[in-house]
């Protein structure tokens, strides 16, 4: 659980059809990205906090304010109606009002004619200038998404819940909006929780990450911690880890900095981990970006401890990606293939034209998945 | 006759006098005659105001049974009057007959029919529903007595009131119809072939009576006086009614 003062506490049981959701999380002040497979319950979590859905039991609290409380056996429950929760909520389908134009939609939640920001400025921010008088159905998908975001921001909420707020936006507008949101977050001290499938969004915008699967919280923590130390294969996969090493612990070094595992007959140095016993089966994950190609003439210079983790690999497949090349490698000792990402420059210099390369698995990038 | 010349309120609010209101429920066919009489009444009795509710005799009867605030009841037939007498809604001492009507056979203006006997050659004949419309009842009685009824079976269209029978003849939907003389007189597009023989049906008599719980008994009595008096009879005859 991330440290700091708990801003939002959710402990809720909810049934939807045959799905049973059981959320339990506490979040400190910051921007939280909610990640999880499609259908895992991310939207449900936001709806519970917004008050659109009501748990069967549990407690939901924003700072000192109780949103919902019901003990398991009690019949009575307390529930703050959604319109008193002061929450800015953008649903996955936007929920725009078809009978109002863009401006009217944006100012819909404004109380007493005092918008926190003038409408024209908000339209400008959202790159919607000139569209104020349009009806919703006359907008493109991304324009609609921005109207929904603007509308939620205009009410001056004390918590922002965004369900995939950038899914229909191009990178330029998205970058700008992410900047703006970060500014708003800091200036107004507004906690933000957003659902996303885009790891980049989570990384750039999030302070914390919550991983949800099958209606449960799988992992929660600071983004660096979660990204670098996913606690399960499922989480790791979700976070873009494509390479997994299954092995058995065979020993460790004297200062307890490294352990060694048997990886299909080869020895591999991994970071030392508390509580792992000799002979135990373990799985490690590593991102393609973190498997480095060794320069042709570099191996002599390598620190000795790294030579353990040096492997020869055949290049099975090469795909040019946006920010470099994606290589699929096969190894002599194991049937599992690995995917690595090499920068354009690195590819040009050290890979191009070769059939076999040497790669290095630096222990620090190998992450134990329990 | 002047279409739509409803009762003008005599005097006005400016006169300031609180008026006593006499409420009369009358058969719709009495509309024009009674409206004129109402004006006369108001002129003769300042301080009185006459209100009418014109509807089918049956509707009026149902209304009275359910407490319609009427003073005088003037249906188009004795049946409804008798029923209300039986149920005690009408004061038996006040019931009088005030008009008599005549059943006539009418045909469309351009019809070639000229005699009663031709009726058996016609296709559609409009009569009031014998069960509920008095004119229909009289027509049935008359036609039965004259020996036509059986032969007309299947050609008869029964109407909900006399007016509807007249309307069918006016529009040529029916080749002939049996209506009151007073009704026939109102229409320019029908021709009276012949009145039905007086002896073939009971006389068509219009009763008038005062409700047992009339709010304005005094006025009601005055109204009955007027209607049955010479002046009233004069007006009624203008609209085709005969003396009872």
């Amino acid at each position: 659980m991330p440290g700091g003062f708990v801003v939002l506490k959710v402990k809720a049981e909810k049934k939807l059809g045959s799905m049973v959701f059981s959320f339990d999380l506490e979040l400190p002040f910051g921007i939280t990205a909610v990640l999880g497979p499609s259908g895992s319950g991310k939207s449900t979590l936001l709806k519970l906090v917004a008050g659109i859905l009501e748990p069967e039991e549990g407690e939901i609290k924003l700072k000192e304010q109780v949103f919902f409380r019901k003990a398991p056996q009690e019949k009575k429950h307390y529930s703050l109606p959604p319109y008193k929760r002061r929450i800015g909520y953008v649903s996955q389908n936007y929920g725009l009002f078809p009978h109002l134009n863009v401006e009217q939609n944006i100012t819909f939640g404004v109380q007493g004619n005092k918008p926190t920001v003038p409408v024209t400025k908000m339209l400008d921010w959202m790159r919607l200038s000139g569209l104020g008088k349009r009806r919703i159905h006359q907008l493109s998908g991304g324009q609609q998404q921005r109207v929904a975001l603007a509308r939620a921001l205009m009410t001056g909420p004390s918590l922002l819940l965004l369900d995939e707020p950038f899914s229909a936006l191009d990178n330029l507008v998205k970058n700008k909006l992410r900047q703006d949101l970060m500014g708003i977050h800091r200036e107004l001290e507004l906690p933000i929780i957003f659902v996303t499938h885009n790891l980049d969004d989570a990384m750039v915008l999030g302070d914390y990450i919550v991983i949800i699967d099958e209606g449960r919280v799988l992992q929660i923590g600071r983004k660096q911690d979660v990204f670098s130390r996913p606690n399960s294969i499922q989480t790791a996969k979700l976070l873009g880890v494509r390479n997994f090493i299954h092995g058995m612990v065979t020993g460790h070094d004297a200062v307890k900095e490294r352990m060694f595992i048997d990886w299909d007959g080869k020895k591999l140095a991994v970071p030392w981990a508390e509580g792992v016993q000799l002979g135990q089966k373990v799985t490690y994950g590593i991102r393609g970006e973190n498997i480095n190609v060794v320069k042709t003439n570099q191996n002599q210079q390598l620190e000795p401890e790294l030579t353990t983790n040096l492997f020869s690999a055949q290049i099975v497949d090469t795909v040019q990606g946006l920010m470099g090349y994606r290589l699929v490698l096969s190894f002599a000792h194991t049937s599992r293939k690995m995917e690595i990402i090499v920068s354009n420059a690195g590819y040009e210099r050290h890979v191009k034209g070769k059939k076999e390369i040497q790669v290095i698995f630096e222990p620090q990038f190998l992450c134990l998945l329990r | 006759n002047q279409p739509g010349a409803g009762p003008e309120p005599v005097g006005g609010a400016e006169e300031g006098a609180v008026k006593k209101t006499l409420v009369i429920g009358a058969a719709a066919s009495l509309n024009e005659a009674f409206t004129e009489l109402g004006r006369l009444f108001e002129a003769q009795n300042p301080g009185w105001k006459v209100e009418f509710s014109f509807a089918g005799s049956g509707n009026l009867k149902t209304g009275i049974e359910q407490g319609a605030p009427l003073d005088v009841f003037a249906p188009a037939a004795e049946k409804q009057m008798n029923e209300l007498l039986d149920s005690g809604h009408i004061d038996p001492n006040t019931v009088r007959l005030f008009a008599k009507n005549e059943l006539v056979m009418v045909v469309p203006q351009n019809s070639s029919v000229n005699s009663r006997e031709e009726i058996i050659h016609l296709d559609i004949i409009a009569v009031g529903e014998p069960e509920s419309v008095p004119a229909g009842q009289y027509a049935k009685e008359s036609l039965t007595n004259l020996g036509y009824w059986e032969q007309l079976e299947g050609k008869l269209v029964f109407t909900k009131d006399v007016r509807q029978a007249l309307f069918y003849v006016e529009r040529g939907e029916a080749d002939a119809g049996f209506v009151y003389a007073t009704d026939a007189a109102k229409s320019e597009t029908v021709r009276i072939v012949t009145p039905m023989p007086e002896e073939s049906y009971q006389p068509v008599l219009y009763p008038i009576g005062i409700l047992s719980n009339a709010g304005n008994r005094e006025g009601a009595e005055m109204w009955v006086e007027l209607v049955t008096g010479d002046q009233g009879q004069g007006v009624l005859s203008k609209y085709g009614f005969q003396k009872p």
Partner: protein
Amino acid sequence: MVFRSHSSASPGNLLSRIGTGCFLGIWFLFILVPFLSLFLQLTGFDMGLLTGSTLAIRAVTTSFTTTAVSLMILVVVGLPTAYLMAKHEGSLTRYGEVLLDLPMVLPPAVAGVLLLLAFGRNGLIGSLLAKQGITVTFSWFAVVLAQCFVAGPLFVKSAINGFRAIDPELEETALTLGKCPWQVFWQVTFPLALPSLTSGLVMAWARALGEFGATIIFAGNFPGRTQTLPLAIYVAMENNFALSMGLSALMVLISFFLLTLIKLLERKDAGRFRGAKG
């Protein structure tokens, strides 16, 4: 648009268009011809007479005041009823809805009799009211009650339908935007249901305006008090057919004018739910 744009391409489609065009024609002919007949019937009749006639003026006044009040009552009582029925689903609502439909089934005269049985001086409720010195029957208010009874279901039914068709997500979103249920209703639910509400109101108004059977029995036929246009037409029909047709024509003209006005107002924000693509 969807269908218009491709029709030219296929002849089969053309055929079916002619077919449906025929249906449209039949329908309108069927409605148009009777009205045409009405106005043809009037040739020679001086409509000017009507405007001078107190009978006509009083009947028009009574008709429009009573229907106006009926509509107000329908909106005030019927709208919450419809809303609650639409939002709460259960067997109670289910049978409630059927009950709601029943008055439409009754022949108007029977409706009038039933109203008398219930609210007449000797009726179930009427006798209670009578003890308080309140008489409902044969009053101006009785006309209103009769109209509400026969026309109400049309409005409530349409309104229920309108409320049901609204995407609940929109109302939920409005709640999260700080609007209390009352505001959500007026700012989201109501405007979204508006087409259904107006159409229900128009139907109810038309039905109330044409109401005859229940009115004449329950409210009587007192000129200036309970004599609505249909009642005046009825009386005129007994005595002066031309006048009754004149009154009918007057009624049709005023209604046409009013209905057109409503349509025009409605269209002011047309294209609300459909854009260029619709």
